[in-house]
């Protein structure tokens, strides 16, 4: 079980060539903006098409340029949380979450919905519109919507980057809980050094469209393989570490 990515894509002069494999664990794609992390995520989800390569989830090919396989995003069953969350503004919290329950049997939908509402602490918000709830609540709705159909993989494109710090700390803990509850590969894209150090089982460092280093956070941070990685892991907002040191323990 796991996710295997081996893709090449040229877009607007940017050249992505990255290859990695993870199991049912939380992997963080870490690097500066424009390193190709989000592009990789879009290729995995099928929102963009690689020029060549292979993407496999749980041993099943979603994309394989040599075999002519290209499963459309609708049929990949990958939960995706967007940076701006992309909640449907015209649907209530309940309808947003249910929209993600595509393919779930009718009699099971409501059961799963109440389960989601319960475990994501969205009680009493079911009938509110996204514009009427707080930032943290929106985050939880986005996660509930992505997870209700129990996807094969969860993809997260910097979902916490717009939050202020206390809320971000809370959401990180929340994500680690999800990681425990859903035994699937989770890929978190971030340029936040604290998230890169404290969150993942496996850290994958990106620079200029290439994977620079892959390993546990301790391995990468104590033994950066290149100058680029060294610069990344000693980034200047390192000091914020102390505010979240409790999370991983």
């Amino acid at each position, binding site marked *: 079980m796991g996710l295997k990515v081996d893709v090449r894509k040229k877009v607007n002069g940017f050249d992505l060539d990255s290859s990695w494999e993870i199991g049912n664990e939380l992997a963080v794609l870490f690097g500066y903006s424009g390193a190709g992390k989000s592009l990789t995520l879009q290729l995995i989800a099928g929102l963009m098409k690689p020029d060549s390569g292979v993407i496999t989830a749980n041993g099943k090919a979603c994309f394989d340029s040599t075999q002519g396989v290209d499963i459309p995003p609708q049929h990949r069953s990958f939960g995706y949380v967007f940076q701006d969350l992309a909640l449907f503004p015209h649907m209530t919290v309940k309808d947003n979450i249910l929209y993600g329950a595509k393919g779930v049997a009718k009699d099971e939908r409501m059961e799963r919905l109440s389960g989601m509402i319960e475990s994501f602490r969205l009680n009493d918000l079911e009938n509110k519109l996204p514009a009427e709830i707080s930032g943290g609540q929106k985050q939880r709705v986005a996660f509930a919507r*992505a997870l209700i159909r129990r996807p094969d993989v969860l993809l997260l494109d910097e979902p916490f980057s717009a939050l202020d710090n206390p809320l971000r700390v809370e959401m990180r803990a929340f994500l680690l809980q999800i990681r425990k509850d859903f035994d699937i590969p989770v890929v978190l894209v971030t340029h936040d050094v604290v998230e890169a150090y404290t969150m993942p089982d496996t850290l994958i460092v990106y620079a200029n469209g290439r994977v620079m280093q892959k390993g546990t956070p301790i391995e990468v941070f104590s033994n950066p393989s290149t100058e680029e990685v060294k610069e990344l892991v000693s980034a200047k907002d390192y000091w914020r570490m102390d505010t979240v040191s409790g999370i991983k323990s």
Partner: protein
Amino acid sequence: MDSSTFFSMKLSLQVAAVATIFVIIVGVTVAYLLARKRFFGKEALDVLFTLPLVLPPTVTGYYLIIAFGRNGFIGRHIYELTGWSIMFTWYAAVLASFVVALPLMIKTARAAIEAVDRNLINASYTLGHSEFETATKVVLPLAKRGIVAGAVLSFARALGEFGATLMLAGNIPGKTDTMPLAIYSLAGSGDWAQASGMVILLTLMAGLFLYMANRYSRRVF
């Protein structure tokens, strides 16, 4: 209001309403394709549908006669099959109004559909929904204001259609004389009193619809 005024008003509303129904169906479909799809000849298609907005209505009417007249390249076959021709019927007035009002719908709806956040569409795809479901549940509901505004504008335009209608449907009293045509006849025969009544009525109706279009085009989300 005398009976001929009442007839013209009723006919105008009927023609505009039926034309608007077709404008919504065809206009939203074409607007969606233009906004969301890439295909060969896309901009040419846009130009073709927009032309009636800038061409003199007589030119539009002329083309419609060439297409749908008894000897037209489409009308000929209809006539051979059924012995019926759309010319000089109130259906012809609907056709003329439809073609002239369609660009207003396409322009307004295309802009509204293009304004829908790309991420919302991608989100719908990643949640397992097909393009058709995404269009009907996400894109069109979010573009609703623009579509409603386009429909109201089209209705107002259809209500005021004159030139193409005159060429295609004629100006037959009690049969195809919509309000604009009736006003033309009344003014021509010097019946200013009845003409001004209709002019005021038509102005008020058009003003009301423009006001409604403005109200609906304001975005809520």
